[in-house]
């Protein structure tokens, strides 16, 4: 049962991250996802100091706001100071993350967070941390509920805003001319990314969550040329890598989140080489075939 809970929780988080990641990858903003996942740290620590629990509703909202704030800072530095986007990202998220690290070390006694957990998360504790009702009923692992809620919110968001998200991703200038606010939808998307990152924080940590945001979406991008199919493949990759990752971790007796991301990396490598449409080896093979065909057809000289 423990294995099932862990795999299910990991899959739900991976699906949430992957779906948002599809938009991030196509917007060429994958690293903004990275930035947000780090920048929310001070939000998490402050909310923890105020509320005393690690996965309260206030915490998710507070951290989501900081995520949006970091997006705003990145755009501000880029637009107002003319700083390159990647430099703006680098400055912003490291600064906010550092703030979080200082807060953790200063309040070490009061905050039940250590740097290791912040970086890598600990999904193995999911089955232990149960949600117990006032009358003592055990509802199951708390992280599982958080993961399910996060996925529901994300699916609702993408379902409602699909047209706007799709259009502002593909052709923002055109979207603006038909009256869609490009920056509003950008901030909404970043808000969703922040919320998801915070929710997944306990389980996978700040660094590995980036792999969940970018990896499955990047794999799907190489496998299809339709957006809806890309999202479907992303979901599939998220589930496969969570499952295989868990068993890899059991096999080597190592970190589960680390193993999941390792599987994502391996799947990406395989896709990169063998994807029927974009794979490096497949392209080479097609070229060779074409060259042979031309050679066979060419008149003797």
């Amino acid at each position, binding site marked *: 049962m423990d294995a099932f809970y862990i795999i299910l929780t990991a899959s739900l988080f991976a699906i949430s991250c992957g779906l948002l990641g599809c938009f991030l990858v*196509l917007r060429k903003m994958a690293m903004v996802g990275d930035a947000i996942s780090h920048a929310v740290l001070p939000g998490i620590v402050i909310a923890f100091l105020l509320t005393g629990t690690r996965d309260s509703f206030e915490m998710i909202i507070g951290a989501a706001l900081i995520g949006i704030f970091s997006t705003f800072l990145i755009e501000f530095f880029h637009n107002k100071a003319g700083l390159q986007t990647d430099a703006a990202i680098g400055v912003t998220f490291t600064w906010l993350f550092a703030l979080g690290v200082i807060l953790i070390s200063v309040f070490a006694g009061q905050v039940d967070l250590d740097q290791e957990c912040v970086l890598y998360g600990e999904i193995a504790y999911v089955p232990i941390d149960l949600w117990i009702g006032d009358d003592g009923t055990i509802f199951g692992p708390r992280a599982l509920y958080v993961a399910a809620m996060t996925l529901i919110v994300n699916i609702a968001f993408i379902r409602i805003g699909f047209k706007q998200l799709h259009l502002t*991703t*593909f052709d923002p*200038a055109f979207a603006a001319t038909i009256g869609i606010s490009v920056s509003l939808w950008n901030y909404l998307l970043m808000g969703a990314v922040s919320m998801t990152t915070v929710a997944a924080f306990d389980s996978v940590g700040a660094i590995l969550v980036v792999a969940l945001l970018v990896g499955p979406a990047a794999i799907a991008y190489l496998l299809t040329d*339709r*957006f809806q199919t890309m999202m479907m493949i992303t979901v599939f990759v998220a589930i496969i890598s969570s499952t295989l990752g868990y068993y890899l971790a059991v096999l080597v007796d190592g970190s589960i989140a680390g193993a999941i991301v390792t599987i994502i990396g391996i799947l990406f490598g395989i896709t990169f080489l063998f994807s029927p449409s974009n794979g490096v080896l497949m392209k080479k093979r097609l070229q060779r075939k074409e060259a042979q065909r031309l050679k066979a057809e060419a008149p003797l000289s």
Partner: protein
Amino acid sequence: MRIEAKEPVVEFHDLTVSYHKKPVLWNIDMTLPKGALVGIIGPNGAGKSTLIKSAMGLLPLASGYVKIFDEALDDVRHKVSYVPQRESVDWDFPTSVLDVVLMGRYAKLGLLSRPRKADKEMALNCLAKVGMEAYVNRQISQLSGGQQQRVFLARALAQEAELYFMDEPFAGVDAATEAAILAIMQEMTAQGKTVIVVHHDLQSAAEFFDWIVLLNMRLVASGPINKVFTNDMLQETYGGKLTVLAEVGELVRKRQIPSREKY
């Protein structure tokens, strides 16, 4: 030289636009007529694209205003269509030709509704009009430059607007596509729609447009082609550096079409 349109659909009033405090358009003041095929002509960096972007509200204005159908853009958005430069989007985006054209219908749909069957039929019709019916389900990265431009035009047609702003629709397309696009534009203007095109080729400009706007950061001239497209005006726009200018003046003189008197 500035000739006012009798039946204006677009009015620029004292428009100034700047990038990083450096003005790129100065004091543009003109009106453009209904039902005309308008060419915005000028050298590189003259602010041609900036002019239509500011008309579409994509850039902040330093001063002045643009009125469309005598109203603010926000009140008449559904009657205005904008075709960005082809290079402005990522053609490797995983989407099909039909999906791109359907985006032209988005403005007419509510927040939650998906495109309906009628929208799809409309999109297919528009694709047929631009001669792309064979490519409906093609992935957009497989299109040639001319085909990409046709898809953008189909998306604009799907908007069923009254006024069209197009940014360099003839850039890098082959002769067949050029003729096809021009034919569609002429059909649109015949129906009383107004098409405003950013264009950089002087030779073809002489053949394409009814109304010419000559621009070089400030407005050099705006008016019917036979009045405005003269050697003097072109030299003023381009600084008299081009030998081709004399030939173009000749072209315009040869092309004496009576219908041009309608403005």
